[in-house]
């Protein structure tokens, strides 16, 4: 990296550069140092730790144990459970977030009254601390003081469900919160995309007699396609790696029903001190995500050609 700046490059055709590249290096170094120490170094050490039996304790005794952690992971039902929960959570939240976000973005793109209110409201969850979002929904789901049970009771139901500790309702309840918290960003991005679709295309199609659905299907969707691809991939990865919200709402319970991979890894590492095992888990997660990325990108490349 460093030599690349020290040696003048030939890519200076389009943009004029001023002065020497030695100066560029000096400008970048202050940012490079903390990144190297606290980002690149841990990355390398994390990969290594995954092949050791490192444990929190007196000293981190790191004797390499080869693939033992990975063999254990393969047979760890808790790991498979968290993987399954993570997949269900990430797929559902991402899908709902996208569908609802697209719907809202389409609405906000129309000349409607109250549009400003929806725009403002749509941004609030984005700015809120995840812990507060979690707390807020805990108030709604609260078995006695919560509004959800009160509403169900009013409609004639029992209204005594403890949503977050009930085995069958915990994951759906948490998913709703995930969608509420994640939708704004998707909406805003899609709205920006919608506004970049040239209006003339729509007008020309309308003149030719295309209905709104046809215009959506044949003009809006195709022009948004690359953005949709990018945003759903990113959302999926972010959701798969979620932590704060669910930690506050259920801490992974009841009985592991909402135990996302990150929660499982946190518990293994900082709850039980199994650093090597948790690091191995991190390595596996990265491999899985990288694999997914390759799959998505490959399909995109095929579509492009």
């Amino acid at each position: 990296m460093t030599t690349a700046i020290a040696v003048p490059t030939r890519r200076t055709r389009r943009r004029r550069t001023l002065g020497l590249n030695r100066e560029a290096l000096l400008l970048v170094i202050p940012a490079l140092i903390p990144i190297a120490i606290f980002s690149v170094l841990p990355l390398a050490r994390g990969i290594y730790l995954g092949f050791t039996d490192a444990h929190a304790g007196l000293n981190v005794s790191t004797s390499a144990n080869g693939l033992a952690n990975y063999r254990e992971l393969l047979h760890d039902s808790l790991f498979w459970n968290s993987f399954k929960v993570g997949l269900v959570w990430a797929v559902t939240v991402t899908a709902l977030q996208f569908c609802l976000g697209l719907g809202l973005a389409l609405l906000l793109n129309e000349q409607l009254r109250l549009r400003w209110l929806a725009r403002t409201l749509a941004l609030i969850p984005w700015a809120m601390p995840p812990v507060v979002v979690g707390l807020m929904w805990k108030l709604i789901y609260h078995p006695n003081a919560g509004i959800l049970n009160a509403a169900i009771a009013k409609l004639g139901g029992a209204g005594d469900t403890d949503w977050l500790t009930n085995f069958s309702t915990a994951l759906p309840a948490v998913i709703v919160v995930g969608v509420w918290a994640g939708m704004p960003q998707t909406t805003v991005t899609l709205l920006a995309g919608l506004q970049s679709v040239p209006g003339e295309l729509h007008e020309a199609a309308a003149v030719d007699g295309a209905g709104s659905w046809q215009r959506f299907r044949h003009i809006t969707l195709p022009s948004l396609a690359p953005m949709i691809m990018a945003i759903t991939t990113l959302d999926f990865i972010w959701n798969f790696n979620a932590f704060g919200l669910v930690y506050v709402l259920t801490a992974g319970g009841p009985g592991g029903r909402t135990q996302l991979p990150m929660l499982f890894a946190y518990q293994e590492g900082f709850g039980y001190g199994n650093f090597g095992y948790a690091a191995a888990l991190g390595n596996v997660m990265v491999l899985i995500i990288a694999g997914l990325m390759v799959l998505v990108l490959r399909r995109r490349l095929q579509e492009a050609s």
Partner: protein
Amino acid sequence: MTMVAERPRRRRAFQYTALSAYLLFLAFPLLWLLSTAFKGPREMARLHPTLIPHAPTLDNFSAALHEQALVHSAWNSVKVSVAAAVLTVLLALPAAYALARFRSRLNRVALGWVVLSQIFPLILIIIPLFLILRDLHLVDTHLGLIIVYVVWSLPFALWLLRGYVQGIPVELEEAAATDGAGRLRILVSIVAPLLAPGIVVTLLFSFISAWNEFFLALVVLNDPEQATLSLTLARFLGKEGVADLGPLAAASVLATIPSLVLFGVIQRRLTSGLLSGAVKG
């Protein structure tokens, strides 16, 4: 004829119904939080709670403000977030300038890293990061958390600032250079003032990320004395009890205000900065 007149009207009706449903879904949790924050303990204990408090009270807010741990951790949050934001900008500014003005292989590496950092699972580095902090005796210190936050928000800060630098005409700098000003001089006295809006956006963005962050703080800080606001709120949440929910809701409302206000200030610029960065990248 009627078909043509009817369809847009029905479409409008559908659109307004859908918009109302969205408004309800988005606003209701917030209203419930606010409502809870203004309810007294007796009303909280009622079996059939209502959205509008019968006897609105500010007791919960004063209870939250009298809770030593909450006030103390709010102050911790202010210190950590401000320090992290300032340091992030100080480190990102020169680097972003270099990335915008010098074309080299470093550019591609840096931008690739920015993209990667967005999808990077923290779990991969959290344990070794913890160990490194421990070796440096930075666990349970604000300095440790500040460093982690700076490294965490640097990629995006770089990305934002780089876009703003690209918006400044090179000619201005060239003129100064022919007048004999050095690179650092140019950066401080010509580029930085012109970048002021971009610097403010980046500062506020880094502040909000640090203010809202939870996971890293949970790992780095164990001592309740050092805890940030998010940590303390989560800790109070652990020990439940209907009576405590009121002050907790009030504290949550207060904890949200800073990031909400700042986010409101930079939201438009943040979105346009993101888009311009994406277009120019």
